[in-house]
């Protein structure tokens, strides 16, 4: 056996061991492709997120967009261009009434403060619902949504994408198996250079489109961005923070806005550990990631990629010797690859380093499989409510400058 044969063999064997020990396989994921009829889906809200959803739905087998709804004509037109044959609506109630049983699932991607009405109308019409995160801009609305979802009894998913992300699921299995050992530090950030302003083609729509910059209804950076990342720590740890402190300001986009463009939060857990989270709309360095550091390893998650950085005294399990690695400054990370077994068997381990699809794709797929009768979605109403509450309290901590206690009673659906 030559050297390269041996490396190849060990690489494949290593991939097999890793996958055997820790898990999944994209190929083994529940799929939609086997359905006789595509699941009829309606999208409400054809803004940036709505259009991204339509782009992903186009690639999913077994789902068909039959209707698109938006109150703004330009957005509706733009949405319909991405959904061949779909009907357009300006009013979601009319959509529900006219299409009746011709729609199975409603995907809600309206501005956050408008989720409640659309979600509850859809649930009352007997539809399965996927709602973008955060669930709402107030804890009251979030609880109302969660209560309605529970009462309706159909499938309800919250779009918290960490829970359905194959790489995050894989990395979580490492975390839960004790690879990190004693968790000492948690950090996360979402940095992007972006104004957070939405231009309106019609000046009359300017205020409605820029709801994220309206202090009365905006969940701010912690609510809109933090909720997704906070939930990753909830998902990994199986517990929720008990307090949150925060501060922020407008340091970059000094255009008269009041909603901070830069924010720092510290979320405290019952065991005394803290999650430090930062978001900034003025700089994009290192983008969005979460980091869990313990006595034996650190796991870094970056939505399409994940890495494990092992300490020198961490036990070696064998497989990682021949795993893919990437260097970050002075450190070398082992890339955690979903579907490692299959890729290794095909000699394509390198190609699987990043997820082929956007995390949104897997969240939608997970939901659609559940709606098609494939069980529970990865993130339901209860998880959605809890993450939303944490995000909104973090925003309150930033705007008030006061530490917020996170009362578990707020997590109860009622």
């Amino acid at each position, binding site marked *: 056996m030559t050297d390269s044969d041996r490396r190849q063999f060990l690489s494949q064997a290593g991939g097999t061991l890793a996958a055997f020990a820790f898990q999944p396989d994209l190929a083994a994921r529940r799929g939609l492709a086997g359905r006789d009829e595509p699941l009829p889906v309606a999208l409400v809200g054809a803004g940036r997120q709505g259009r991204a959803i339509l782009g992903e739905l186009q*690639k999913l087998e077994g789902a068909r967009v039959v209707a698109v709804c938006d109150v703004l004509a330009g957005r509706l037109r733009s949405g319909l261009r*991405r959904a061949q044959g779909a009907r357009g609506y300006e009013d979601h109630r009319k959509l529900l009434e006219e299409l009746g049983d011709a729609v199975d699932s409603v995907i809600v991607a309206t501005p956050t403060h408008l989720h409640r009405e659309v979600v509850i109308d859809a649930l009352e019409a007997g539809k399965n619902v996927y709602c973008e995160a955060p669930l709402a801009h107030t804890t009251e609305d979030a609880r109302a949504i969660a209560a309605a979802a529970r009462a309706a009894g159909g499938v309800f998913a919250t779009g918290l994408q960490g829970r359905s992300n194959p790489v995050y699921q894989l990395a979580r299995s490492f975390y839960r198996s004790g690879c990190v050992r004693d968790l000492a530090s948690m950090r996360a950030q979402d940095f992007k250079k972006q104004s957070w*302003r939405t231009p309106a083609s019609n000046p009359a729509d300017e205020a409605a489109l820029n709801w994220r910059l309206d202090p009365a209804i905006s969940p701010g950076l912690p609510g809109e961005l933090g909720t997704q990342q906070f939930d990753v720590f909830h998902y990994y740890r199986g517990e929720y923070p008990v307090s949150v402190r925060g501060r922020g300001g407008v340091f970059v986009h000094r*255009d008269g806005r009041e909603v901070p463009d830069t924010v720092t939060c510290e979320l405290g857990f019952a065991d005394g550990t803290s999650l430090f989270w930062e978001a900034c709309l003025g700089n994009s360095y290192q983008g969005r990631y979460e980091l869990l550091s313990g006595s034996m390893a650190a796991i870094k998650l970056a939505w399409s990629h994940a890495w494990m950085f092992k300490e020198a005294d961490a036990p070696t399990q064998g497989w990682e010797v021949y795993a893919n690695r990437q260097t970050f400054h002075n450190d070398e990370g082992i890339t955690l690859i979903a579907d490692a077994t299959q890729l290794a068997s095909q000699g394509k381990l390198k190609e699987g380093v990043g997820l082929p699809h956007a995390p949104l794709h897997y969240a939608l797929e997970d939901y659609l499989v559940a709606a098609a009768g494939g069980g529970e979605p990865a993130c339901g109403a209860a998880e959605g409510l809890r993450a939303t509450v944490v995000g909104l309290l973090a925003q309150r901590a930033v705007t008030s400058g006061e530490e917020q206690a996170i009362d578990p009673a707020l997590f109860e659906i009622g």
Partner: protein
Amino acid sequence: MATRFELVLDGEDEGRLRAVGELALETIAECERTISPFLSASLIARVNARAGKGWVEVDADTFTLLETAQAVRRESLGAFDVTVAPVMEALGFRERATADLAAARGAVGGDALLLDRERSAVRFAREDLSLDVGGVGKGHALELAREVLCEHGIERALLHGGTSTVVALGAPPAAEAWSVALGPEPDAPLAHLRDAALSVSASHGRTVPATDGTAGRGHIVDPHTGRPLAGGIAAAVIDTDARRADARSTALCLARLPFCDPDRAPLAWARAVRVGGVPRWERAATAERGPNRIEHRDPRHQHRAQTA
């Protein structure tokens, strides 16, 4: 694509211009995810995987892209062909280089690419067909970005992808048109653009190393022969549509297109042959209209005027 896009927007409200620019760039990024031949999860990858077995529906924008590509294929008698993917792969322009160039060449054939406008759907009449829309991708992305800018009332802007495909909206203040040099040489021709698109293709652009020790292979490949175009040829096309300009400049590198129908001719075009490392641009009699034209600044080339 996998290239840098830049926008210059002119107007009064800087904050609003930034927001519109962000939206346009997001649109370009979304376009890349949809049509990139490098991304296994792109819509084009999905079409390649499934259209040999049945109709695959695509969004309206992607359908327009494919329709434009097919129109230029017909016009150029196959000099431009988006079914050239197997050859590009065989030549090493994609991640996996396949060895069998002859087989790859046999798999090229835009006649087998079927488009159903009614259903906005694509089908391959042969299972071995595969699309690579790289030759028209930058133009497509810029057209989508232009739509965003127009929808938001931007009247003066210049956009480019990889410096080789350019879209102009209006003209700069106090000027008749945007002016873009066709090369770094001080006397390189100037393309003047107003509400028009420019594309420049050159055989000496992106290359991949040859495995036989010879010079690298240029990225313009003749779909008929499967051979990369020999070095030294360049072509520039000004057109009303950036997709068409993109496809036509590639085709023009490979073939002298007649453009005899004035209604379908580009607004302006020119070809160059590199002599001693310096491109010698040929003037072309074109349907130059309004401010959109190619201005030749090297007096040595003035006598080279020829009819198309």
